[in-house]
């Protein structure tokens, strides 16, 4: 990221204004205490046995792959969308933006039901597709990816859009005056400039997808090895076996932290 302003990055170290540090400490505590409580309840003695069960390994594998796939789809569709929202003016743009971030406010279960009405076997689009090809999204792993993408993509779009808005347009203008094509400017100037926000957005999107529950269970169902992701496995384990549920949650937390902590300092500077 050599074309980012390295000076600005380092110069931020300064003395905090009054009250900022205590409030920040409260914020940290508020998030940390529940995690500590979870650790305190954790069944440390038979943790290994609990997380080694096939139901856990299946769910973990499924969670990681579907969250990654959803992030990939969100990148391919979300970056162009963010660009359109940030760089173009057209009537109804704010309506489009509101629609696109709707899944962030919608209860995920409602999102899942809406997906079912759209892509289910008798859905608006799903119906004709099923009748002509026999292809069905619900109850398949692709259904999980679809639910994840629906819920998580807005996080990427919003982040990338604000990154694009913050980028200095003069570089693009300069490239244009030098005769670069629009595609070349997008690829060589815009995307590299937006890279930190793209990575931040992708990480947020992946993390949201990893924890997705409501839309997944409503749209894709719940079957071990096919659609049962970690959050679903945790939820059902909670029904009968709290220790197992906590153990599963710990695995999910550990995996997320393992990804988020190294990324945090390097990339998430937006």
């Amino acid at each position, binding site marked *: 990221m050599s074309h980012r302003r390295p000076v600005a990055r380092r110069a931020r170290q300064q003395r905090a204004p009054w009250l900022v540090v205590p409030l920040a400490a409260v914020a940290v505590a508020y998030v940390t205490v529940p995690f500590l409580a979870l650790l305190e309840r954790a069944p440390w003695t038979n943790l290994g046995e609990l997380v080694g069960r096939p139901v856990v390994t299946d769910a973990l594998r499924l969670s990681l792959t579907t969250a990654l796939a959803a992030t990939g789809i969100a990148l391919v569709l979300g970056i162009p969308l963010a660009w359109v929202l940030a760089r173009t003016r057209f009537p109804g743009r704010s309506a489009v933006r509101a629609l696109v971030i709707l899944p962030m406010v919608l209860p995920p279960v409602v999102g899942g*039901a809406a997906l*079912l*009405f759209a892509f*289910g*076997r*008798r859905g608006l689009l799903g119906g004709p597709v099923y009748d002509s090809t026999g292809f*069905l999204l*619900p*109850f398949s792993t692709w259904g999980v990816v679809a639910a994840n993408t629906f819920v998580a993509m807005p996080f990427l779009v919003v982040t990338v859009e604000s990154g694009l808005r913050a980028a200095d347009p003069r570089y693009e203008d300069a490239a244009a005056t030098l005769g670069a094509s629009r595609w070349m400017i997008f690829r060589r100037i815009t995307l590299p400039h937006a890279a930190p926000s793209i990575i931040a957005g992708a990480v947020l999107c992946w993390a949201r997808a990893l924890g997705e529950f409501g839309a997944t*269970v*409503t749209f894709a*169902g*719940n*079957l071990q090895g096919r*659609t*049962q992701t970690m959050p*679903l496995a945790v*939820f*059902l*384990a*909670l*029904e*009968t076996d*709290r220790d197992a549920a906590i153990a599963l949650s710990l695995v999910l937390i550990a995996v997320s932290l393992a990804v988020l902590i190294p990324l945090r300092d390097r990339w998430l500077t937006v």
Partner: protein
Amino acid sequence: MRLRAIRLLAVVAVPALLFAACGDDDDATDEAGSATTGAPAEESALEGDITVFAAASLTDAFGEVGEAFQAENPDVSVEFSFEGSSALREQILAGAPADVFASANTSNMDQVVEGGAASDPQDFVTNQLQIAVPTGNPAGVTGLDDFAHADLLIGLCAEEVPCGEFGREVLTNAGVTPSIDTNEPDVRSLLTKIEAGDLDAGIVYVTDVMAAGDAVEGIDIPADQNVTATYPIASLTDSGNPEVAEAFVEFVLSDEGQDILTSYGFGSP
């Protein structure tokens, strides 16, 4: 106007007397007696809010029971939380502010009692299972044998919740190994997918099929393969309003409560 007032008086006074008669609380009668004029004077002395944690399969029936109970006790407000019984049990044991627990099976109630959160549960309804298919039965399901067909989309409740436990018991009784496409976290979400036509068949409670009206069709399970679920109810030890909680439980067990429940397809224990 006057006529309506009299009718209201009759509606509220009778249960008020009933509660006064069976209650051991002197305050209740004092309060009712000390109020001076008008219909409210004759109303039940019960007041306050309670939260009832009830199995998802009770959603519609308890909605009506709650309305009837509140009609008789205008100063009482009943809130419901409908979920899978096991999720409710977990919440109660974790100290959720609930006053009454109505479970769809005995094991969840037993665990709540063992945890010291309730005592002396009473069975208040029974329920049986039925095969539910979308209206028109597009897949032509005829019975439990169809649950073994891999090309049909079959849903059950997850085995962690009562309807899943019972559903599997029924299939075992019938000697069928099901080809399952989804294990739904509760009976309502299973029913929703059947109603929407996204599943070809599932096993739910008789009452669910009845409640769904025209949205699904029920196919009976032979009596020798069916399972009877018994629902227990109890007021909770940590209730903030034990009088009202107890009154609600009694109302559910009363003839009036039972009439409402049987109209939704439940059996009397």
